[in-house]
């Protein structure tokens, strides 16, 4: 897994790539919590290059989503590949985390 952060206006965007599994989920969680600490108005995680996510990755995102809510930071995901999207759907994440089809719509919603 690789993580790259960019600022687009005031919004923090985290580009994730590769596998998010029990080996890599902890780094994702740490990165997300560190970004939330900076108190941006919104945080978008771009999944365009993520090939794989397991429940360990879902756990990291759920922890970040809860923390974002407490910090009043809008938390959203975008650009999920079909096989990754399926894992979110089966896990009932659609009702608790905003998931956008692409980066543009995620940024529009974050504004």
């Amino acid at each position: 897994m690789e993580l790259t952060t960019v600022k687009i206006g005031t919004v923090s965007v985290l580009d994730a790539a590769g596998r998010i599994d029990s080996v890599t989920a902890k780094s994702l969680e740490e990165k997300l919590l560190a970004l939330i600490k900076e108190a941006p108005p919104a945080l978008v995680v771009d999944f365009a290059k993520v090939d794989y996510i397991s429940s360990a990755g879902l756990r990291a995102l759920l922890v970040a989503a809860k923390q974002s809510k407490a910090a009043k930071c809008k938390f959203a995901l975008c650009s999920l590949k079909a096989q990754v999207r399926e894992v979110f759907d089966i896990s009932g994440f659609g009702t608790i985390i905003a998931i956008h089809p692409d980066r543009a719509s995620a940024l529009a919603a974050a504004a």
Partner: protein
Amino acid sequence: MAADLVLSLKNDPAEIARLAPLVDAFCARHGLAEATAAQFNLVLDEAITNIISYAYEDAGEHEISVRISLTRGALTAELVDDGREFDPLQVTPPDLAAPLAERSVGGLGVHLMRRLMDDISYRREGARNHLVLAKRIA
């Protein structure tokens, strides 16, 4: 000719990413869809991660054996470990309707296993757990 993939993994989470390409190759050779291989790999990940995380009372090295086969219209994996007795079918399903604040951060691994497989069976044999995960092939 039936050809099975028989693997012996150590209780190290890094083993799971090494297993994935072998499962992909096994599925490709049998003409199964990539999506099937991906779902199967996810379920194997969840089951093996749980064994590594929860099954052992010591910090020593343990062997987890995995046998993957294609028989009678199903892709099947049998996992055998020497950890504590544990039947994942007894785990209470998570509440997927709870709002964010009340959503538990755990319990999704077994849920994914159940949702992505068509049949899961568990038995304890001697000092070993045998978990059989099966996915029907169209």
